[in-house]
């Protein structure tokens, strides 16, 4: 009983302290990403790597057409002039640009408070985590996600996606999800955990660049950077600083308008942790 009351008061003091600091949580790390759209060629290698790394089920053409696919990392195409010569022109002359879109790991994630069973929450690493075995599939989180990056297992795909002996190629470090479970990009949390394990065995801190997400590792043009935002020496921290984008703000105060960095839906105040660098166009 006393511990319960003590926890209540601890909860209160954490809350007030957190409020003063503009957050609510003592983060050990703050993993974040930088994606340079100028370097992105839209080759889909990141998406494929994600499928391989994270045991994503390939659902087949029919279900893909029914929008029941689960591609944690998807390449979105946007056209500058969609109406000009759509029939004959190739994508390049229509000004196609590509946007790799995955879970933005919002610090004020709209998906988190609405989950009835707390299957999605914020880890001390600053990640937006999804616990598959706790999920009951109410799908509220997906409705509340402005980016539409949460994917639901509408069917069981184990037998069709990995017919024997292909189940041997599954990644053992991450669960295979069954039907009725929500899933999404985890920033390759199993790699983070592995790096943490190695670092702990060697008695040191995790080095910058030691953790690579699958998409980052595969990207042929190195458009993706991943690292700890709290580590001031990390490349990601440097990039965020260089582009004058800060966490916890819904409007950035940029001194240099030439800077390309921006976050998607900043105005929704969800505080995403993926920094996109605008594509440079010749006018």
């Amino acid at each position, binding site marked *: 009983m006393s511990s319960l009351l003590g926890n209540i008061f601890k909860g209160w003091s954490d809350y007030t302290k957190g409020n003063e600091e503009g957050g609510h949580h003592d983060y050990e790390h703050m993993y974040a990403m930088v994606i340079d759209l100028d370097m992105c060629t839209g080759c889909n290698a990141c998406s494929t790597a994600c499928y391989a790394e994270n045991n994503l089920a390939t659902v087949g053409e029919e279900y893909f057409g029914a929008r*029941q696919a689960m591609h944690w990392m998807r390449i979105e195409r946007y056209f500058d002039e969609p109406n000009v010569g759509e029939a004959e022109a190739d994508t390049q002359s229509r000004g196609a640009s590509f946007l790799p879109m995955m879970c933005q790991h919002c610090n004020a994630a709209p998906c988190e408070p609405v*989950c*009835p069973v707390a299957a999605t929450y914020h880890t001390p690493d600053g990640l937006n985590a999804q616990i598959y075995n706790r999920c009951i599939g109410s799908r509220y989180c997906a409705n*509340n996600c*402005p980016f*539409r990056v949460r994917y*639901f297992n509408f069917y069981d795909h184990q037998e069709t996606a990995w017919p024997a002996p292909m189940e041997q190629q599954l990644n053992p470090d991450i669960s295979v999800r069954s039907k009725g479970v929500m899933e999404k990009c985890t920033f390759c949390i199993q790699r983070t955990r592995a790096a943490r394990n190695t670092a702990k065995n060697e008695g040191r801190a995790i080095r910058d660049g030691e953790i690579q997400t699958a998409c980052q590792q595969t990207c042929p043009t190195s458009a993706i950077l991943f690292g700890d935002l709290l580590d001031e020496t990390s490349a990601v921290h440097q990039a965020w600083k260089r582009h004058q984008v800060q966490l916890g703000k819904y409007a950035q105060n940029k001194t240099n308008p030439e800077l390309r960095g921006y976050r998607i839906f900043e105005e929704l105040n969800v505080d995403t942790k993926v920094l996109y660098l605008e594509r440079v166009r010749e006018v």
Partner: protein
Amino acid sequence: MSDRKHLTREQTKDIDENIAWASINTDVLRSMENPRRGYWVAMAVSVCLFSVMIYAEVYQYMYGMGAALLNTSHMWDLYISTFVFWIGMSHSGTLLSAILHLVHADWRKPIYRFAEAMTTFSLMTAGIFPVIHLGRVWNFYWVMPYMTDRGIWPNFRSPLIWDAFAITTYLTSSVLFLYIGMIPDLAICRDNAKGWRKPLYTWLSLGWRGDDRQWRNFRFTYLMIACFLIPLAVSVHSIVSMDFAMSIMPGWHVTTFPPYFVAGALYSGCAAIITLFILLRYFFKFEHYMTFPILDKVCKLTFVIAMVWTYLNLVEFASVWYGHDIPSKEVLIAKATGPYSPFFWGMMTFGSVLPFSLLSKWVRRNMYVLFFASIFLNVGMWLERWMIVTPTLSLGYHPQAFNVMWPGWTEWAMVGGSFGWFGMLFLIFVKVFPCVSMYEVKEMVFHRKRTIYEDVDEMMTLHSGVPGPKAQAQTQTSGGA
């Protein structure tokens, strides 16, 4: 007294106050016996619909939620909208039995019992939907706050948990309200029951003997629970609206949703009361109790609530329009002009235009027209809920969300099956429990008679010195009762 002339459309009195109390008992008790063919047909239809629902659920359980053709942008569809619809239906019983009880509108007395039963059963129906829409149905109990050794609790921040609490509370309270209001009637049943009904009613009537002590406590209990139920009913539907209003989605994140939902709930509930009123009056020959003047009052109430709902609907549109949040505005425009626009305009027609027909006395006193009108009012209200869920999800902030979907067969089967389930429960109810409150009709008759007779007596003695009808009736009642 059984002369039916005055039971026509020209009837002006809510109830014939000379009706014999014994005949109230016999009429109502008769309705609980010997189901006729129509009853079995209705039961068979309900059971068939419900079996289809069970089949659909088993199918969906085996193959996953994809069977309902849901997709990445349409995570919710008919399950949630029908859930909201049934929750809405449940509010009528509270309106009739609690609110009108507190304002001493005694015309509610012949009709509140079935409305209250409707509350309970529509809640039981509504409760199915959040469960079957879960991806992992078998883990539905994880939303309940029970102690585990894992140190895991549900997430109390989630409006879905609020829903779970609110529905549990509402179901418990309305079942108790229905039951407590029925105890004196169960005693009547007990006194007249034979066979298997005897122990059932004996047990259920809790030894009710009509003591003054029991009545006094009964009155206070009923009053207290009515006082609890009214804020509860308001809170339940506003919490249901928070499933949407607390989200970030354009088209859902609307401040006026809570009152809008409450008004819509009362509206569809009233329309459903009209439907059931007509059915019960027709099939159980309750012309003496479910009279045209009462129907007339229910219709007027429905019209008023329909106008409140229309107003709040327009307020919602206006606030979105003037708020000038681009995505929200686009959702609104897409509702009216996009692929779902026929349903949107259907909702506006059935929900806002059709109630104007209730202004006509001819409609209010024509059971056949009114029956279909009330059905269409409810269709409009169902469309309203669908129009809240699906068109909103077909748009959104991100272009990835833009897509149009039509519900799969399992969804339609469950929507139909929910009516079967509700019908089954209601049909069982009308044969096991009295669906007209006998003791309260007696009270109504008693008070009306006393009021009228005292006035008339006074006048007659004043003006002519002839003994009034009260004195005359005294000899009649002692013999004829």
